Protein backbone atom coordinates (compact mmCIF):
# COMPACT_ATOMS: atom_id res chain seq x y z
CA UNK A 1 0.00 0.00 0.00
CA UNK A 2 1.15 3.52 -0.78
CA UNK A 3 2.46 5.08 2.42
CA UNK A 4 3.52 8.34 0.75
CA UNK A 5 2.01 11.51 2.13
CA UNK A 6 -0.88 12.87 0.09
CA UNK A 7 -0.74 16.29 -1.53
CA UNK A 8 -2.79 19.15 -0.01
CA UNK A 9 -5.40 19.02 -2.76
CA UNK A 10 -6.03 15.30 -2.16
CA UNK A 11 -7.48 15.57 1.34
CA UNK A 12 -9.72 17.70 3.48
CA UNK A 13 -9.51 18.94 7.04
CA UNK A 14 -11.59 16.04 8.35
CA UNK A 15 -9.10 13.62 6.78
CA UNK A 16 -6.23 15.41 8.47
CA UNK A 17 -7.92 15.34 11.88
CA UNK A 18 -8.83 11.72 11.46
CA UNK A 19 -5.27 10.71 10.63
CA UNK A 20 -3.77 12.85 13.41
CA UNK A 21 -6.17 11.19 15.86
CA UNK A 22 -5.41 7.73 14.51
CA UNK A 23 -1.70 8.27 15.14
CA UNK A 24 -2.36 8.82 18.84
CA UNK A 25 -3.20 5.11 19.13
CA UNK A 26 -0.46 2.61 19.86
CA UNK A 27 -0.72 -1.05 19.02
CA UNK A 28 -2.22 -3.39 21.65
CA UNK A 29 -3.95 -0.54 23.45
CA UNK A 30 -7.50 -0.72 24.76
CA UNK A 31 -9.35 2.26 23.34
CA UNK A 32 -12.71 3.68 24.37
CA UNK A 33 -14.38 5.19 21.31
CA UNK A 34 -17.15 7.73 21.02
CA UNK A 35 -19.45 8.17 18.06
CA UNK A 36 -18.30 9.92 14.91
CA UNK A 37 -14.85 10.91 13.73
CA UNK A 38 -13.09 9.24 16.71
CA UNK A 39 -14.63 5.94 15.66
CA UNK A 40 -13.25 6.32 12.15
CA UNK A 41 -9.85 7.33 13.52
CA UNK A 42 -9.61 4.28 15.74
CA UNK A 43 -10.77 1.90 13.06
CA UNK A 44 -8.18 3.50 10.79
CA UNK A 45 -5.47 2.76 13.36
CA UNK A 46 -6.78 -0.82 13.51
CA UNK A 47 -6.34 -1.11 9.72
CA UNK A 48 -2.87 0.43 9.70
CA UNK A 49 -0.34 0.60 12.53
CA UNK A 50 -2.32 -0.85 15.45
CA UNK A 51 -3.90 -4.11 14.27
CA UNK A 52 -4.13 -5.45 17.83
CA UNK A 53 -5.88 -2.52 19.46
CA UNK A 54 -9.04 -3.42 21.36
CA UNK A 55 -12.08 -1.26 20.86
CA UNK A 56 -14.69 -0.58 23.56
CA UNK A 57 -18.00 1.05 22.73
CA UNK A 58 -19.73 2.72 25.67
CA UNK A 59 -23.08 1.02 25.01
CA UNK A 60 -21.56 -2.35 25.82
CA UNK A 61 -19.61 -3.79 22.90
CA UNK A 62 -16.21 -5.06 23.99
CA UNK A 63 -13.25 -5.71 21.69
CA UNK A 64 -15.35 -4.82 18.66
CA UNK A 65 -14.29 -5.23 15.04
CA UNK A 66 -17.21 -3.83 13.10
CA UNK A 67 -17.00 -4.62 9.38
CA UNK A 68 -18.93 -1.41 8.63
CA UNK A 69 -18.63 1.87 10.49
CA UNK A 70 -21.37 2.10 13.14
CA UNK A 71 -23.52 5.22 13.08
CA UNK A 72 -23.41 5.39 16.88
CA UNK A 73 -22.10 3.27 19.73
CA UNK A 74 -25.53 1.69 20.28
CA UNK A 75 -25.66 0.60 16.64
CA UNK A 76 -26.26 -3.02 15.66
CA UNK A 77 -23.14 -2.66 13.48
CA UNK A 78 -20.95 -2.48 16.60
CA UNK A 79 -21.54 -6.07 17.52
CA UNK A 80 -20.49 -8.14 14.56
CA UNK A 81 -17.14 -9.73 15.29
CA UNK A 82 -16.95 -8.41 18.84
CA UNK A 83 -15.65 -10.47 21.72
CA UNK A 84 -18.71 -9.60 23.72
CA UNK A 85 -21.89 -7.57 23.51
CA UNK A 86 -23.31 -6.73 26.87
CA UNK A 87 -24.12 -3.43 28.51
CA UNK A 88 -23.05 -0.22 30.14
CA UNK A 89 -22.35 -1.78 33.51
CA UNK A 90 -19.60 -3.87 31.94
CA UNK A 91 -18.22 -1.03 29.84
CA UNK A 92 -17.96 1.38 32.77
CA UNK A 93 -16.80 -1.27 35.24
CA UNK A 94 -14.01 -2.29 32.88
CA UNK A 95 -13.07 1.36 32.49
CA UNK A 96 -13.10 2.12 36.23
CA UNK A 97 -11.12 -1.08 36.83
CA UNK A 98 -8.31 0.51 34.82
CA UNK A 99 -8.28 -1.41 31.54
CA UNK A 100 -8.55 1.60 29.25
CA UNK A 101 -5.40 3.10 27.76
CA UNK A 102 -6.91 5.78 25.58
CA UNK A 103 -10.21 7.55 25.14
CA UNK A 104 -11.31 9.80 22.28
CA UNK A 105 -13.65 12.64 23.12
CA UNK A 106 -15.06 15.90 21.82
CA UNK A 107 -16.05 19.18 23.40
CA UNK A 108 -17.63 22.57 22.86
CA UNK A 109 -15.12 24.50 24.97
CA UNK A 110 -11.67 23.76 26.39
CA UNK A 111 -9.50 25.80 28.75
CA UNK A 112 -5.71 25.94 29.15
CA UNK A 113 -5.77 23.04 31.67
CA UNK A 114 -7.75 20.77 29.40
CA UNK A 115 -11.04 21.15 31.24
CA UNK A 116 -13.77 20.55 28.70
CA UNK A 117 -17.39 21.68 28.54
CA UNK A 118 -20.22 19.90 26.73
CA UNK A 119 -23.03 20.99 29.06
CA UNK A 120 -24.01 24.62 28.49
CA UNK A 121 -22.82 27.98 27.22
CA UNK A 122 -23.07 30.77 29.78
CA UNK A 123 -24.03 30.59 33.45
CA UNK A 124 -25.23 27.06 34.29
CA UNK A 125 -28.15 28.43 36.28
CA UNK A 126 -29.17 30.82 33.48
CA UNK A 127 -27.65 29.32 30.36
CA UNK A 128 -27.47 30.99 26.99
CA UNK A 129 -27.53 27.58 25.39
CA UNK A 130 -28.07 24.17 26.87
CA UNK A 131 -25.98 21.53 25.08
CA UNK A 132 -26.18 17.74 25.13
CA UNK A 133 -24.81 17.29 28.65
CA UNK A 134 -21.88 15.21 29.74
CA UNK A 135 -22.56 11.78 28.30
CA UNK A 136 -19.60 9.56 29.09
CA UNK A 137 -17.09 12.38 28.54
CA UNK A 138 -16.07 12.84 32.21
CA UNK A 139 -16.15 9.10 32.84
CA UNK A 140 -13.86 8.07 30.01
CA UNK A 141 -11.65 11.02 30.87
CA UNK A 142 -11.57 10.01 34.55
CA UNK A 143 -10.82 6.36 33.94
CA UNK A 144 -8.49 6.24 30.91
CA UNK A 145 -4.73 6.65 31.06
CA UNK A 146 -4.82 9.19 28.21
CA UNK A 147 -7.58 11.10 26.46
CA UNK A 148 -7.53 12.88 23.15
CA UNK A 149 -10.03 15.61 22.32
CA UNK A 150 -11.04 16.46 18.77
CA UNK A 151 -12.49 19.96 18.46
CA UNK A 152 -13.51 22.64 16.04
CA UNK A 153 -11.14 25.56 16.62
CA UNK A 154 -12.87 28.87 17.27
CA UNK A 155 -11.49 31.53 19.60
CA UNK A 156 -14.60 31.41 21.82
CA UNK A 157 -14.13 27.65 22.24
CA UNK A 158 -10.46 27.90 23.39
CA UNK A 159 -11.42 29.87 26.41
CA UNK A 160 -9.87 31.34 29.55
CA UNK A 161 -12.46 29.55 31.66
CA UNK A 162 -15.04 27.06 30.43
CA UNK A 163 -18.66 27.86 31.31
CA UNK A 164 -18.97 24.51 33.05
CA UNK A 165 -16.31 21.86 33.72
CA UNK A 166 -17.98 18.80 32.26
CA UNK A 167 -14.84 16.74 31.89
CA UNK A 168 -11.81 17.00 34.14
CA UNK A 169 -8.54 18.44 32.85
CA UNK A 170 -5.21 18.67 34.66
CA UNK A 171 -6.26 21.30 37.18
CA UNK A 172 -9.74 20.79 38.57
CA UNK A 173 -12.03 21.89 41.39
CA UNK A 174 -11.87 20.27 44.78
CA UNK A 175 -15.48 20.13 45.94
CA UNK A 176 -17.29 21.03 48.11
CA UNK A 177 -14.88 23.98 48.55
CA UNK A 178 -14.09 24.37 44.88
CA UNK A 179 -10.41 25.33 45.19
CA UNK A 180 -8.32 24.50 42.14
CA UNK A 181 -5.97 21.54 42.55
CA UNK A 182 -3.87 19.32 40.32
CA UNK A 183 -5.88 16.34 39.18
CA UNK A 184 -3.32 14.04 40.79
CA UNK A 185 -4.16 15.36 44.25
CA UNK A 186 -7.84 14.61 43.86
CA UNK A 187 -8.00 11.30 42.03
CA UNK A 188 -6.08 9.05 44.40
CA UNK A 189 -5.96 5.47 43.15
CA UNK A 190 -7.99 6.52 40.11
CA UNK A 191 -5.22 8.84 38.95
CA UNK A 192 -3.84 7.27 35.81
CA UNK A 193 -3.15 10.36 33.66
CA UNK A 194 -5.38 12.84 31.88
CA UNK A 195 -5.92 14.72 28.64
CA UNK A 196 -2.89 14.04 26.45
CA UNK A 197 -3.80 15.91 23.29
CA UNK A 198 -6.29 18.25 21.71
CA UNK A 199 -6.56 17.95 17.96
CA UNK A 200 -8.28 21.06 16.67
CA UNK A 201 -8.98 22.23 13.16
CA UNK A 202 -5.82 24.39 13.42
CA UNK A 203 -3.23 22.26 15.20
CA UNK A 204 -2.30 19.57 17.69
CA UNK A 205 -1.91 20.59 21.33
CA UNK A 206 -0.40 18.68 24.22
CA UNK A 207 -0.15 19.14 27.98
CA UNK A 208 2.65 19.54 30.46
CA UNK A 209 1.69 16.95 33.06
CA UNK A 210 3.29 18.89 35.93
CA UNK A 211 1.97 22.39 35.31
CA UNK A 212 -1.13 20.97 33.64
CA UNK A 213 -0.90 23.67 30.95
CA UNK A 214 -1.63 23.20 27.28
CA UNK A 215 1.00 23.91 24.63
CA UNK A 216 1.07 23.85 20.87
CA UNK A 217 2.83 20.84 19.40
CA UNK A 218 2.19 20.98 15.66
CA UNK A 219 0.39 23.37 13.30
CA UNK A 220 -1.77 22.08 10.49
CA UNK A 221 -0.42 23.21 7.11
CA UNK A 222 -1.15 26.87 6.42
CA UNK A 223 -1.25 27.99 10.07
CA UNK A 224 1.54 29.68 12.01
CA UNK A 225 2.02 29.29 15.78
CA UNK A 226 1.24 32.98 16.24
CA UNK A 227 -1.98 32.73 14.28
CA UNK A 228 -3.05 29.81 16.40
CA UNK A 229 -2.15 31.64 19.60
CA UNK A 230 -4.34 34.50 18.42
CA UNK A 231 -7.19 32.03 18.12
CA UNK A 232 -7.05 31.20 21.86
CA UNK A 233 -8.51 33.37 24.65
CA UNK A 234 -5.78 32.13 26.99
CA UNK A 235 -2.09 32.75 26.51
CA UNK A 236 -1.03 29.71 24.46
CA UNK A 237 2.49 28.38 24.99
CA UNK A 238 4.07 28.20 21.51
CA UNK A 239 7.64 27.61 22.67
CA UNK A 240 7.48 23.85 22.23
CA UNK A 241 6.21 23.60 18.66
CA UNK A 242 7.77 20.60 16.96
CA UNK A 243 6.71 21.36 13.40
CA UNK A 244 3.85 20.84 11.02
CA UNK A 245 1.14 18.21 11.50
CA UNK A 246 1.93 15.32 9.18
CA UNK A 247 -0.54 15.01 6.32
CA UNK A 248 -2.52 11.80 5.65
CA UNK A 249 -0.84 9.10 3.62
CA UNK A 250 -2.44 7.75 0.51
CA UNK A 251 -2.94 4.47 2.32
CA UNK A 252 -4.84 6.19 5.11
CA UNK A 253 -7.03 8.07 2.63
CA UNK A 254 -7.74 4.80 0.87
CA UNK A 255 -8.92 3.16 4.11
CA UNK A 256 -10.99 6.16 5.17
CA UNK A 257 -12.85 6.59 1.91
CA UNK A 258 -12.88 3.16 0.31
CA UNK A 259 -13.16 0.90 3.35
CA UNK A 260 -14.27 2.66 6.52
CA UNK A 261 -16.59 5.46 5.48
CA UNK A 262 -17.45 5.05 1.81
CA UNK A 263 -20.93 6.37 2.58
CA UNK A 264 -19.36 9.65 3.83
CA UNK A 265 -21.26 9.41 7.09
CA UNK A 266 -18.61 11.22 9.08
CA UNK A 267 -15.89 12.22 6.62
CA UNK A 268 -16.71 13.95 3.33
CA UNK A 269 -14.61 13.21 0.25
CA UNK A 270 -12.65 16.07 -1.21
CA UNK A 271 -13.90 16.73 -4.70
CA UNK A 272 -11.14 16.78 -7.33
CA UNK A 273 -10.66 20.32 -8.58
Amino acid sequence: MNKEFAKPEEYGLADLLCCAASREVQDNEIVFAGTGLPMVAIMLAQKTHAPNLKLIFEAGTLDGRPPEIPTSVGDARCEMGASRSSGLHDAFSIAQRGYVDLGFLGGAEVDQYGNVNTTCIGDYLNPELRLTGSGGNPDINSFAKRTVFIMVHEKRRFTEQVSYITSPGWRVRNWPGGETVHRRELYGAAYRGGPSAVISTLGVFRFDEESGRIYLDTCHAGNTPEQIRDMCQFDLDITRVSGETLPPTREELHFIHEVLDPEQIFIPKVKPK
Partner: protein
Amino acid sequence: MSSGKRITLQQAAEIVKNGSSLTFSGFTIWRRPFALVYELIRQRRKGLHLIEVNGGPQTEFLVGAGCVDIWESCWVGHELYGKYGANLSRKVGNKEILVEDYSHAEMLFRFSAAASGAPYAVTQTALGTDIHNPAYDTLGNAGLRDGRRIPKHKYRFTEDPFFGAGAQVMVPAAKVDVAILCVQQVGEEGTVRVNGQFYSDPEVARAADVTIVMAEEIVPEEYLRRDSDLNTITSFEVDHIVEVPFGAHPTGMFGRYDVDGAFLKDFYTRTRTQEGFDDFAKEWIHGLDHLGYLEKLGWPKMLNLKANTALKYSTGVKRGQ
Protein backbone atom coordinates in the same frame (compact mmCIF):
# COMPACT_ATOMS: atom_id res chain seq x y z
CA MET B 1 -49.24 -21.02 31.56
CA SER B 2 -50.65 -17.54 30.95
CA SER B 3 -49.95 -15.01 33.65
CA GLY B 4 -52.50 -12.33 32.80
CA LYS B 5 -49.67 -9.84 32.27
CA ARG B 6 -50.75 -8.90 28.74
CA ILE B 7 -52.25 -5.42 28.40
CA THR B 8 -52.85 -2.87 25.63
CA LEU B 9 -50.79 0.20 24.82
CA GLN B 10 -53.57 2.41 26.18
CA GLN B 11 -53.65 0.50 29.46
CA ALA B 12 -49.88 0.62 29.69
CA ALA B 13 -49.88 4.39 29.31
CA GLU B 14 -52.53 4.71 32.02
CA ILE B 15 -50.17 3.04 34.51
CA VAL B 16 -47.95 6.11 34.21
CA LYS B 17 -49.66 8.79 36.29
CA ASN B 18 -49.22 12.54 36.24
CA GLY B 19 -46.15 13.13 38.40
CA SER B 20 -44.73 9.60 38.02
CA SER B 21 -41.01 9.05 37.74
CA LEU B 22 -40.15 7.14 34.61
CA THR B 23 -37.25 5.46 32.87
CA PHE B 24 -36.67 3.55 29.64
CA SER B 25 -34.76 0.75 27.95
CA GLY B 26 -32.25 1.39 25.21
CA PHE B 27 -29.36 3.67 24.43
CA THR B 28 -29.59 7.09 22.71
CA ILE B 29 -31.36 6.19 19.43
CA TRP B 30 -31.76 2.44 19.94
CA ARG B 31 -34.65 0.42 21.43
CA ARG B 32 -36.68 3.28 22.89
CA PRO B 33 -40.33 2.43 23.71
CA PHE B 34 -41.76 4.90 21.22
CA ALA B 35 -45.26 3.49 20.72
CA LEU B 36 -45.85 4.02 24.43
CA VAL B 37 -44.12 7.40 24.46
CA TYR B 38 -46.54 8.50 21.73
CA GLU B 39 -49.47 7.16 23.73
CA LEU B 40 -48.36 9.13 26.82
CA ILE B 41 -48.33 12.25 24.66
CA ARG B 42 -51.78 11.44 23.28
CA GLN B 43 -53.05 10.98 26.83
CA ARG B 44 -51.46 14.36 27.70
CA ARG B 45 -49.54 13.11 30.71
CA LYS B 46 -48.14 15.94 32.88
CA GLY B 47 -45.46 16.48 35.49
CA LEU B 48 -43.31 13.47 34.67
CA HIS B 49 -39.91 13.06 36.30
CA LEU B 50 -37.64 11.32 33.79
CA ILE B 51 -34.63 9.57 35.29
CA GLU B 52 -32.57 8.18 32.43
CA VAL B 53 -29.16 6.56 32.14
CA ASN B 54 -29.01 8.59 28.93
CA GLY B 55 -31.64 10.51 26.99
CA GLY B 56 -32.56 10.50 23.35
CA PRO B 57 -35.44 11.13 20.99
CA GLN B 58 -37.94 9.80 23.56
CA THR B 59 -36.81 12.55 25.93
CA GLU B 60 -37.17 15.18 23.25
CA PHE B 61 -40.68 14.05 22.29
CA LEU B 62 -41.94 13.97 25.89
CA VAL B 63 -40.24 17.25 26.78
CA GLY B 64 -41.49 18.96 23.62
CA ALA B 65 -45.03 17.82 24.39
CA GLY B 66 -44.86 19.39 27.83
CA CYS B 67 -45.15 16.08 29.72
CA VAL B 68 -41.93 16.52 31.73
CA ASP B 69 -41.20 18.69 34.78
CA ILE B 70 -37.86 17.16 35.79
CA TRP B 71 -35.15 15.53 33.67
CA GLU B 72 -32.37 13.78 35.54
CA SER B 73 -29.70 12.28 33.32
CA CYS B 74 -26.48 13.02 31.48
CA TRP B 75 -27.08 13.45 27.77
CA VAL B 76 -29.75 14.16 25.20
CA GLY B 77 -29.54 14.31 21.44
CA HIS B 78 -30.18 12.28 18.30
CA GLU B 79 -26.58 11.17 17.59
CA LEU B 80 -25.83 11.73 13.90
CA TYR B 81 -29.36 12.98 13.20
CA GLY B 82 -29.56 15.97 15.49
CA LYS B 83 -26.66 17.10 17.60
CA TYR B 84 -28.45 18.21 20.74
CA GLY B 85 -31.87 18.20 22.34
CA ALA B 86 -33.50 21.33 20.94
CA ASN B 87 -36.74 20.93 22.90
CA LEU B 88 -34.97 20.41 26.20
CA SER B 89 -32.62 23.27 25.43
CA ARG B 90 -35.53 25.61 24.69
CA LYS B 91 -37.35 24.65 27.88
CA VAL B 92 -34.19 25.00 29.96
CA GLY B 93 -33.76 28.49 28.54
CA ASN B 94 -37.39 29.32 29.40
CA LYS B 95 -37.04 27.71 32.84
CA GLU B 96 -39.94 25.41 32.03
CA ILE B 97 -38.06 22.31 33.16
CA LEU B 98 -35.63 21.31 35.92
CA VAL B 99 -32.47 19.50 34.80
CA GLU B 100 -30.30 17.51 37.19
CA ASP B 101 -26.93 16.62 35.64
CA TYR B 102 -24.90 13.53 36.50
CA SER B 103 -22.22 11.81 34.46
CA HIS B 104 -23.07 8.78 32.35
CA ALA B 105 -21.23 6.33 34.60
CA GLU B 106 -22.80 7.94 37.66
CA MET B 107 -26.30 7.42 36.20
CA LEU B 108 -25.43 3.82 35.41
CA PHE B 109 -24.04 3.16 38.89
CA ARG B 110 -27.13 4.86 40.38
CA PHE B 111 -29.37 2.39 38.57
CA SER B 112 -27.09 -0.53 39.46
CA ALA B 113 -27.34 0.43 43.12
CA ALA B 114 -31.14 0.64 42.95
CA ALA B 115 -31.29 -2.69 41.12
CA SER B 116 -29.21 -4.27 43.90
CA GLY B 117 -31.32 -2.76 46.64
CA ALA B 118 -28.39 -0.62 47.82
CA PRO B 119 -29.05 3.01 48.76
CA TYR B 120 -25.99 4.30 46.94
CA ALA B 121 -22.80 3.42 45.07
CA VAL B 122 -19.27 4.77 45.39
CA THR B 123 -17.22 5.73 42.35
CA GLN B 124 -14.21 7.81 41.39
CA THR B 125 -15.63 9.29 38.21
CA ALA B 126 -16.10 12.95 37.29
CA LEU B 127 -14.13 14.18 40.32
CA GLY B 128 -13.27 17.85 40.07
CA THR B 129 -16.00 18.69 37.55
CA ASP B 130 -18.94 21.05 37.89
CA ILE B 131 -21.23 18.02 38.01
CA HIS B 132 -20.19 17.95 41.68
CA ASN B 133 -20.51 21.71 42.16
CA PRO B 134 -22.82 22.10 45.19
CA ALA B 135 -24.33 25.27 43.69
CA TYR B 136 -25.61 23.24 40.76
CA ASP B 137 -27.84 20.92 42.78
CA THR B 138 -31.02 21.68 40.86
CA LEU B 139 -33.45 19.55 42.85
CA GLY B 140 -31.91 20.77 46.10
CA ASN B 141 -32.18 24.39 44.96
CA ALA B 142 -35.84 23.73 44.16
CA GLY B 143 -36.45 22.28 47.63
CA LEU B 144 -37.46 18.89 46.26
CA ARG B 145 -35.02 16.65 48.17
CA ASP B 146 -37.46 14.93 50.50
CA GLY B 147 -35.41 11.76 50.99
CA ARG B 148 -38.24 9.57 49.74
CA ARG B 149 -38.06 9.10 45.97
CA ILE B 150 -35.71 12.04 45.57
CA PRO B 151 -32.58 11.54 47.68
CA LYS B 152 -31.68 14.04 50.43
CA HIS B 153 -28.44 14.89 48.64
CA LYS B 154 -27.34 14.93 45.03
CA TYR B 155 -24.10 13.25 46.12
CA ARG B 156 -21.79 12.99 49.12
CA PHE B 157 -18.01 12.89 49.23
CA THR B 158 -16.03 10.39 51.25
CA GLU B 159 -12.62 8.71 51.38
CA ASP B 160 -11.87 5.04 50.92
CA PRO B 161 -11.05 3.65 54.37
CA PHE B 162 -9.89 0.23 53.15
CA PHE B 163 -7.07 0.73 50.66
CA GLY B 164 -6.41 4.46 50.82
CA ALA B 165 -7.73 4.79 47.27
CA GLY B 166 -8.63 8.41 47.98
CA ALA B 167 -11.64 10.59 47.22
CA GLN B 168 -14.86 8.82 46.40
CA VAL B 169 -18.18 10.23 45.31
CA MET B 170 -21.28 8.54 46.69
CA VAL B 171 -24.18 8.63 44.23
CA PRO B 172 -27.71 7.83 45.38
CA ALA B 173 -29.73 4.91 44.01
CA ALA B 174 -32.04 5.88 41.12
CA LYS B 175 -35.51 4.99 42.38
CA VAL B 176 -38.24 5.15 39.77
CA ASP B 177 -41.94 4.38 39.70
CA VAL B 178 -42.15 2.89 36.24
CA ALA B 179 -39.68 1.46 33.72
CA ILE B 180 -40.82 0.97 30.13
CA LEU B 181 -38.75 -1.43 28.07
CA CYS B 182 -38.80 -2.12 24.36
CA VAL B 183 -37.24 -5.44 23.39
CA GLN B 184 -37.25 -8.15 20.74
CA GLN B 185 -39.05 -10.91 22.67
CA VAL B 186 -40.99 -11.36 25.87
CA GLY B 187 -42.63 -14.58 27.07
CA GLU B 188 -46.22 -14.80 28.27
CA GLU B 189 -45.02 -14.83 31.86
CA GLY B 190 -42.63 -11.94 31.45
CA THR B 191 -39.25 -13.51 30.69
CA VAL B 192 -37.32 -11.13 28.42
CA ARG B 193 -34.76 -12.07 25.81
CA VAL B 194 -32.79 -9.14 24.45
CA ASN B 195 -30.62 -9.80 21.42
CA GLY B 196 -27.44 -7.78 21.01
CA GLN B 197 -26.27 -5.19 23.49
CA PHE B 198 -28.64 -5.03 26.44
CA TYR B 199 -27.40 -1.55 27.43
CA SER B 200 -28.73 -0.89 30.97
CA ASP B 201 -32.05 -2.70 30.55
CA PRO B 202 -31.53 -5.27 33.35
CA GLU B 203 -30.72 -2.52 35.83
CA VAL B 204 -33.60 -0.19 34.93
CA ALA B 205 -36.11 -3.05 34.94
CA ARG B 206 -35.15 -3.98 38.49
CA ALA B 207 -34.75 -0.42 39.77
CA ALA B 208 -38.38 0.43 38.99
CA ASP B 209 -41.38 -0.46 41.12
CA VAL B 210 -43.45 -1.31 38.04
CA THR B 211 -41.90 -2.68 34.87
CA ILE B 212 -43.74 -2.67 31.55
CA VAL B 213 -42.24 -4.55 28.63
CA MET B 214 -43.17 -3.73 25.04
CA ALA B 215 -41.92 -6.39 22.66
CA GLU B 216 -41.81 -6.95 18.94
CA GLU B 217 -43.42 -10.28 19.72
CA ILE B 218 -44.86 -12.10 22.68
CA VAL B 219 -43.59 -15.67 22.40
CA PRO B 220 -44.49 -18.85 24.26
CA GLU B 221 -42.83 -18.70 27.65
CA GLU B 222 -41.76 -22.30 27.23
CA TYR B 223 -39.81 -21.39 24.07
CA LEU B 224 -37.64 -18.94 26.04
CA ARG B 225 -37.24 -21.34 28.94
CA ARG B 226 -35.71 -24.01 26.73
CA ASP B 227 -32.46 -21.99 26.90
CA SER B 228 -32.64 -20.10 30.14
CA ASP B 229 -29.06 -18.90 29.88
CA LEU B 230 -29.94 -16.79 26.83
CA ASN B 231 -32.53 -14.69 28.67
CA THR B 232 -31.98 -11.18 29.97
CA ILE B 233 -34.67 -10.33 32.52
CA THR B 234 -36.55 -12.67 34.88
CA SER B 235 -40.29 -13.30 34.60
CA PHE B 236 -41.16 -11.92 38.02
CA GLU B 237 -39.33 -8.64 37.42
CA VAL B 238 -41.87 -7.81 34.71
CA ASP B 239 -45.38 -6.69 35.65
CA HIS B 240 -47.03 -6.02 32.30
CA ILE B 241 -46.36 -7.00 28.71
CA VAL B 242 -47.53 -5.47 25.43
CA GLU B 243 -46.97 -6.77 21.91
CA VAL B 244 -46.10 -3.85 19.60
CA PRO B 245 -44.39 -4.65 16.30
CA PHE B 246 -42.06 -1.84 15.18
CA GLY B 247 -42.75 -0.24 18.55
CA ALA B 248 -39.31 1.39 18.78
CA HIS B 249 -39.62 3.38 15.51
CA PRO B 250 -38.02 5.90 14.82
CA THR B 251 -35.27 4.37 16.97
CA GLY B 252 -33.70 1.08 15.93
CA MET B 253 -33.70 -2.47 17.23
CA PHE B 254 -30.83 -4.94 16.85
CA GLY B 255 -31.71 -7.72 14.47
CA ARG B 256 -35.09 -6.21 13.57
CA TYR B 257 -34.82 -2.72 12.06
CA ASP B 258 -32.51 0.24 11.78
CA VAL B 259 -32.82 3.76 13.13
CA ASP B 260 -35.01 5.94 10.86
CA GLY B 261 -32.44 8.70 10.50
CA ALA B 262 -34.50 10.75 8.05
CA PHE B 263 -37.43 10.80 10.46
CA LEU B 264 -35.23 11.90 13.36
CA LYS B 265 -33.52 14.56 11.27
CA ASP B 266 -36.92 15.87 10.25
CA PHE B 267 -38.02 15.94 13.90
CA TYR B 268 -34.82 17.69 14.97
CA THR B 269 -35.05 20.28 12.22
CA ARG B 270 -38.73 21.05 12.68
CA THR B 271 -39.00 21.16 16.46
CA ARG B 272 -36.62 24.00 17.32
CA THR B 273 -39.70 26.02 18.22
CA GLN B 274 -42.76 25.01 20.22
CA GLU B 275 -44.92 25.73 17.19
CA GLY B 276 -42.72 23.41 15.20
CA PHE B 277 -43.12 20.69 17.78
CA ASP B 278 -46.88 21.10 17.94
CA ASP B 279 -47.07 20.88 14.19
CA PHE B 280 -44.93 17.73 14.15
CA ALA B 281 -47.06 16.17 16.90
CA LYS B 282 -50.25 16.99 15.01
CA GLU B 283 -48.85 15.22 11.98
CA TRP B 284 -47.32 12.13 13.61
CA ILE B 285 -48.88 11.58 17.05
CA HIS B 286 -52.33 12.98 17.72
CA GLY B 287 -55.27 11.35 16.00
CA LEU B 288 -53.27 8.22 15.19
CA ASP B 289 -52.93 4.91 16.93
CA HIS B 290 -49.92 2.63 16.50
CA LEU B 291 -51.28 0.85 13.44
CA GLY B 292 -52.30 4.15 11.90
CA TYR B 293 -48.76 5.40 12.52
CA LEU B 294 -47.24 2.38 10.79
CA GLU B 295 -49.68 2.76 7.91
CA LYS B 296 -48.64 6.39 7.55
CA LEU B 297 -44.94 5.45 7.58
CA GLY B 298 -45.74 3.01 4.82
CA TRP B 299 -44.55 -0.34 3.59
CA PRO B 300 -41.59 0.79 1.45
CA LYS B 301 -40.00 2.70 4.33
CA MET B 302 -40.39 -0.16 6.79
CA LEU B 303 -38.99 -2.69 4.33
CA ASN B 304 -36.03 -0.42 3.80
CA LEU B 305 -35.37 -0.19 7.55
CA LYS B 306 -35.81 -3.92 8.11
CA ALA B 307 -32.63 -5.64 9.27
CA ASN B 308 -30.90 -8.28 7.24
CA THR B 309 -31.32 -11.36 9.42
CA ALA B 310 -27.72 -12.52 8.92
CA LEU B 311 -26.11 -9.12 9.54
CA LYS B 312 -28.67 -7.89 12.14
CA TYR B 313 -28.82 -4.46 10.50
CA SER B 314 -30.36 -3.02 7.35
CA THR B 315 -28.31 -2.95 4.19
CA GLY B 316 -30.86 -0.66 2.55
CA VAL B 317 -30.67 2.51 4.61
CA LYS B 318 -28.75 5.48 3.31
CA ARG B 319 -26.65 6.70 6.21
CA GLY B 320 -24.28 9.24 4.66
CA GLN B 321 -24.64 12.74 3.26
